[in-house]
């Protein structure tokens, strides 16, 4: 059994194999792999005995269930109204300038993926962004450089 198969088997053992456990299983794969490849979706379908098309259909509905290859750190910048008013674009420019990637792209070293997302629920401390599950609020272009440097210097 390859690592993905055993990951999926473990998750299915942990949560159960009925349909209502599909989301937790997919979230578990994302946690480890950062995205759901076609292969992992087919494996999930096989393990849980659900049509693969259903797995694909469900996965593509949710914006946090990535189906495209993604980096180790997924940066999600909030683009909804208050963040847009309070300097989301400057924040995006600073990130793009630093990582040399555009929105939707992954850095060549597979470390960062830059995405925009809808309201994160931090409108009183705009602009906000997520790096994986970590929240950063009132992020100025200066601060975002500090934050990303920290992630860049992290090992592996």
């Amino acid at each position: 059994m390859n690592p993905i198969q055993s990951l999926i088997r473990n998750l299915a053992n942990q949560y159960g194999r009925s349909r209502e456990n599909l989301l937790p299983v997919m979230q578990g794969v994302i946690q480890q792999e950062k995205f759901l490849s076609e292969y992992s979706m087919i494996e999930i379908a096989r393990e849980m005995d659900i049509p693969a098309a259903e797995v694909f259909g469900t996965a593509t509905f949710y914006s946090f269930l990535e189906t495209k290859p993604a980096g180790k750190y997924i940066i999600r910048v909030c683009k909804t109204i208050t963040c847009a008013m309070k300097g989301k674009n400057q924040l995006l420019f600073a990130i793009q300038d630093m990582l040399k990637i555009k929105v939707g792209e992954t850095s060549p070293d597979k470390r960062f993926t830059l995405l925009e997302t809808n309201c994160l629920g931090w409108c009183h401390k705009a602009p906000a962004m997520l790096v994986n599950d970590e929240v950063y609020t009132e992020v100025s272009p200066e601060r975002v450089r500090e934050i990303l440097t920290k992630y860049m210097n992290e090992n592996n």
Partner: protein
Amino acid sequence: MAYSYQLKRVDFIFRNENDWEKVLSATIKKKPEELINELISSELKGRGGAGFPTGLKWKLTAESKAPEKYVICNADEGEPGTFKDREILSKVPYKVLTAMAVCGYVTGAKQGFIYLRGEYKFLEAELYKAIDEFQYYCKEIDLDFKIKIFMGSGAYICGEETALMESMEGRRGEPRNKPPFPTQAGYMGVPTVINNVETLVHTWTIFKYGAKKFYDLGVQYSRGTKLFSVSGDTPKPGIYELELGMSLQDFVYEFGDGDTKAVQVGGASGFLVPRKKFKDTAIGYEGKLVGISLPTGGSMMLFNSSRSMFNVLDNYLEFFREECCGQCTPCRVGCQQLLLGIKAVKRGEKPASYLNKLLKLTETMQLTAKCGLGQSVANSFSSIVENFREEMIY
């Protein structure tokens, strides 16, 4: 100019009380009917935005004879400009858990779920700690009620109660047809009470202090207090608990920056109120008090005169286009066409009269869309286009 105004600040929700064990054990000594009557007489209405009477919801579920039932706490807080539920869950989680257990006791449900939006995953560990402590006490007093967290994965529509249940069942978060309502056939097809986080905390207040204390706050049809998430062009953004029924004018005096042009009440799916209508608008559920009364899930976004209302509407429509589940045609195609339409008018490719056509389209969406998302696009669209028409064109 001296203008005397009254905004009544209250402090119930975040009041730090360490007596949840006492409240829980005292409450479940009362009869379920007694508790339901207490809730009904408090006139508490759902705080997620739709405003369904909470007591009635519990009663309908309690009356059902089904052997299995569920309680769900809706923490899929996705409406732009709302962030109160996160604050509740991180500051006073035990109030929410207690309220869920009482709801389980009243309705006969043995299992509760908290549907937590993916964006709040950082809360999960803390919340599980609170749940563990809570379950331990439940065991001590022989209360058979379990609580689990279900993580969402980033979908605004899953805040709609039936979409949320679809999502929990492992499917795409597409709203169901109603009826049957969740109180008849909800999660896994069994009767389910689904309440917003804040609503549950209000039931705690009612069970602890009595319905009268709650009823005495607010105004007719809109009893009690409400958490407001204040953001945008304001010197003091944040979360405030206020009595319902205030006039928008008073709100703007308190929170505006002196140059408030318009206030968006109820987030992207709510209404935009321009300056000239502040005086005639009250915040609360339906019922004619001061002109119009606007319900809200608590989102209050202020815009000052430096903001372009075209950009605001453009941002909302892009939000709806992305978050529309794509299931029904009026909403799927409507959101796309509205966005293309206002851009075309702005660029001069379509005449100004095209806006009237778009307004008609939102009317159609209001009548024919399957769920609240598609129906409420008309709210912000028509209130912005009608009040700031020239900004849409020039």
